[in-house]
């Protein structure tokens, strides 16, 4: 199976649990064969999808306002962006809307956007109604899911949904190393023509 590397960018306010979601995703089924990354800001995980293997290269970003301006460097070339908000913090949902807007303006075309409402284990202090978030997601054709990194709820599903939305390889921009190989083969076969 061909391995396809997919860059996924994590956006969202500080403290909403961006890295918790990813840590949960990556570490729950930790594959010891895969060389671990040096820290939790950048994590990778490979999952099967159809007849491909998707290797998620997950780029975490710093959510503080002062780092906002650096975000373009992180989401450039991303196949998908996961924007996380905290269902117990309305502010974080507002920030999410700003991210959506910025991605629309400056993000890669065809980027798959997924909206994750984290901390749904804290439903009793919820500030963001699920319905509102869901409608917003639908309005921008984004994936929507509520997760709980703490209880490992819907984390796997979130990335499965992303996997499904990734267009097949032909349409994908040639950023992965896989496409390097493909493009090289013709050259290789033509060169021994003596």
């Amino acid at each position, binding site marked *: 199976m061909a391995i396809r590397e997919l860059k996924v960018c994590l956006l969202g306010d500080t403290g909403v649990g*961006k890295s918790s979601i990813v840590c949960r995703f990556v570490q729950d089924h930790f594959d010891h064969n895969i060389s671990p990354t040096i820290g939790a800001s950048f994590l990778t995980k490979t999952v099967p999808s159809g007849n491909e293997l998707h290797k998620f290269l997950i780029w975490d970003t710093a959510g503080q306002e002062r*780092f906002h301006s650096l975000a373009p460097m992180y989401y450039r070339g991303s196949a998908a962006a996961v924007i996380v908000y905290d269902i117990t913090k309305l502010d974080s949902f507002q920030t999410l809307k700003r991210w959506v807007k910025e991605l629309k303006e400056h993000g890669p075309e065809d980027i798959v956007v997924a909206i994750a409402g984290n901390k749904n284990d804290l439903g009793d202090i919820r500030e963001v109604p699920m319905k509102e978030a869901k409608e917003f997601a639908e309005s921008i054709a984004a994936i929507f899911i509520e997760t709980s990194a703490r209880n490992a709820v819907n984390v796997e599903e979130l990335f499965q949904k992303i996997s499904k939305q990734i267009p097949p390889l032909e349409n994908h921009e040639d950023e992965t190393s896989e496409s390097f190989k493909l493009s090289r083969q013709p050259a290789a076969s033509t060169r021994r023509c003596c």
Partner: protein
Amino acid sequence: MASSSPPGNPPSGLTDRSGSFFKLIDTFASEIGELKREMVQTPLTFDKEPMDLQGLEAEVCGVYLQSPSCAGLGGERDSGYDSLRRRMSVLERLTQTHPVWLLLAVSEEEATRILLTQPPGVFLVRKSAALQRKILSVRLKEDQSGTPISHLPVRESQYTFSLEESGISFADLFRLVAFYCISRDVLPFTLKLPEAIASAKTQKELEEAAQLGAGFWDSALCSQHRTFPRACRPLSRTLSPQRSNRNREGEESQQRHTGAHCDSAPPTLRSCASPPSFRLERRHSSGPLCFVTPLFLQTHRRPPRCEDDPPTHAVRSDEDLENEGKSLKLSSSPGIEQHVDKVKLNGKSRTPPPRPPPPRSMPRRRPAPPPPGPPAATTRPKSMPVAVTVSPRQQPTSTKRQAPARPSMGGKQGSPSKTASPPIPVPSNPPPPRPKKPDLESHRCHIALDDETIAKALSRAKLPPCQPTAADALLEGNAGSPSTPKERGRQRLSDMSMSTSSSDSLEYSHSPGFSLGLAPSPSRHLNHQDTVEDSSDDDDDVDEDDEDYGVSLETDLEMRHRPSFKARRRRVGVSLGGGSFILPRALKGRFRKVSGMLSSLMTPERRAVKRIAEMSRDKSSYFGSLVQDYISFVQENRGCHTSGTDFLQTLRQFMTQMKAYLRQSSELDPPLESLIPEDQIDQVLEKAMHKCVLKPLKSVIEVALHDFQVKSGALQQLKENLALAKAKRPQELGVDGAVPPDPLAIEKIRHKFLNMRKMYSPEKKVSLLLRVCKLIYTIMQDNSGRMYGADDFLPMLTYVVAQCDMPQLDTEIQFMMELLDPSLLQGEGGYYLTSAYGAMALIKNFQEEQAARVLSSEARNTLHHWHRRRTTPRSAPTVDDFQNYLRVALQEVDTGCTAKTLMVQPYTTTEEVCSLCAYKFKIPDPNAYALFLVIEGTRQQLAPDTHPQRIKAELHGRPCAHTFHFVYRRIPNLNLFIPAIMDNGNCIQVE
């Protein structure tokens, strides 16, 4: 210090591991040398009685570990590479004639057509378009199984080539084929070179064959030889009778050595009689083979006890016989004759042994093993065929070294003795030369290292569990307790992670096997050892000039271990809690010797990089002229770039173009595909580009970037802001909760950054950056135990960068950003590079941030711009892109020659080039000048409408390249060309 402990008698407890370590290396190296020689010596003269002498005295086995003897071998022993040049080995023949048999473009049909007219065993290598794999197509015997041609896919895993059905891996295709020319392994018989190649006596003959390329097969050369009786093909003229006894002895000892490990004698033949002073072995070559884990080499160094070695030559096909081509001239040693008789008498020698089981537990001829090959085969870098241990270590680690009764063919054996007798203690220092019988010696010199040797080595490798490592044997010897193979000793090199990830140099791995705490740190950095550093972070001292940041034997063994000799000792001492461990002198000497051997080995990767680098300096090659022209252009014209980024991008583009060119051109000989597995080629080319382009330009780039920084005022601003940021507390930079590194740690990080500056390769720089990041994580996590994401890490990184107060870091990051292989930008290296860039951007704009809490719009625009730039897909370079530079010399009567490298597009006319020259050289009267092509003393004025770049390309394309120059000079006869130029006008026009 080293002398206080007598050689060979190191303090047992301490040397236990270290001793074994050195032994491992030692035996490993020896084995490699041996194998090389086998490849070299395969063709030997063939005599009527092919036989093998083996395993005489035990000491013989020891000889090849003996430094004096090794030294005395004068090149023969060294590595095989020298010998390669002097003699024509199978490997050499193969390499030189690859245009004949390495026909990647040939279809299956065509391959079949070619091979049908050939005798069995003849082969070629092609590439299946459907499978996208290389295929070894072999002519079978007529009577075999219907199909006249067998097509065997070649499996390429990381840095190794192997046949699909076999567990034996090779460093490159040539070695693979060479091996199968002398050993059949999974093939029905050995491969055979076409007669004309196999019997070629001179380089010239090989060249002739090679020049025919695929046409060879239809040529008279090919068919003419075909009529020769194959049986008397003299494959073996390479063993020169002049070789010294020493050599012979060394060789034989090796042979014996390997033989001694073979546990594969058919059980029926294994009687352990009391040892005769020597034994005669016969062999059969058609057995399955496996290969050699060198670590076992010394294990069974002990006197052979069995006289009944398996009959070796009893049954062989003609092909085997002739292919093996080695023959042992058994002349007249009475002892031997006698023994022959004995063997014959007991009747077993002629008994065709049953075909032994396949070497591996896997079913033979399995059509398509699952992609992940045998575990050990897949990732290890090998410069030589290496054993793949497929058989699980199911054997109990009993104290007996009972050889499993696994008849393997390689059959000569020696193993029975093992079962009974404890190993003879082997002193760690070289055994003294032992007396030997002269006549035996002379026999030995005729013993070829042939497939049998390999077979034995191979079969030995199959039995790892029941054999202690060489190191163990030695240890036991040292300790005087020849009893039990220790569990730990069973660790073999193949088990030790050899840090094979050269392919991804961003990942660094440590070798768990080298558990002495021998952190790889070349000696030049020894001074910097700080004990504070945890060992996992210790290897950031990288000796980049050795260009093998990656994997290689050399990297792993030589580079890391030889130079760090001192370090190792020191470390050992430390790790043992001050126990004064002293490296025995003997070990040291051996270690050096081993290093010497290793240094002559190169991984294919490294060889390829070296080859490309050499070619890049050779201006007579097209590639070389492109690179050199570009380098001189950059050196002369670095001012022509608008910014550092622009400059770096041009460099990056050039490297990308050159990589594409190398992939498409046939200038590399042998072709890269035969040396490097397909999926590694890009990385190898990338490394080569760093070496060819970035290394010579390192200082130029540094200066240029610095100049841009100064000119734009950015440096000053950066310094000011750094000073401001440095004064801030972590909290003011956004750090929330996590504990920042203390000043000591900051100093350590600074040191790592300084090391980073020394590298010319962006990948290497990035790997050092990763270590810094890892250290920061470690500090953060040590203090809290939790995982930190970017919310915590990025502020901390910003704080650390500010504390380090290194303005030069800015250009470092810029360098990496722009020059790193684009395919790596999405990975971990790319991520932390981006973070470092971000941290630096924040610091650069610190004042504004203080004021506005956001980056200036200008800074934001820069980021966006940068983002767009890196994401816009670059159009694939074409060959035309490589021709942008033209070196033109201005020849003046009075001032002599001055040359400039000009940017000249492929379709730029001579006329335009003249204009450019006039401008660049500041010629007041351009009409009096013209462009001339000077080839070997003849001079030719170029017409205004010609295209110099195309002329250059054509000249480079000629088979015999002459040196040529473009010279801009005064036209000798003014009347000749001025009118033409005038007619065309434009001559003043400057691009």
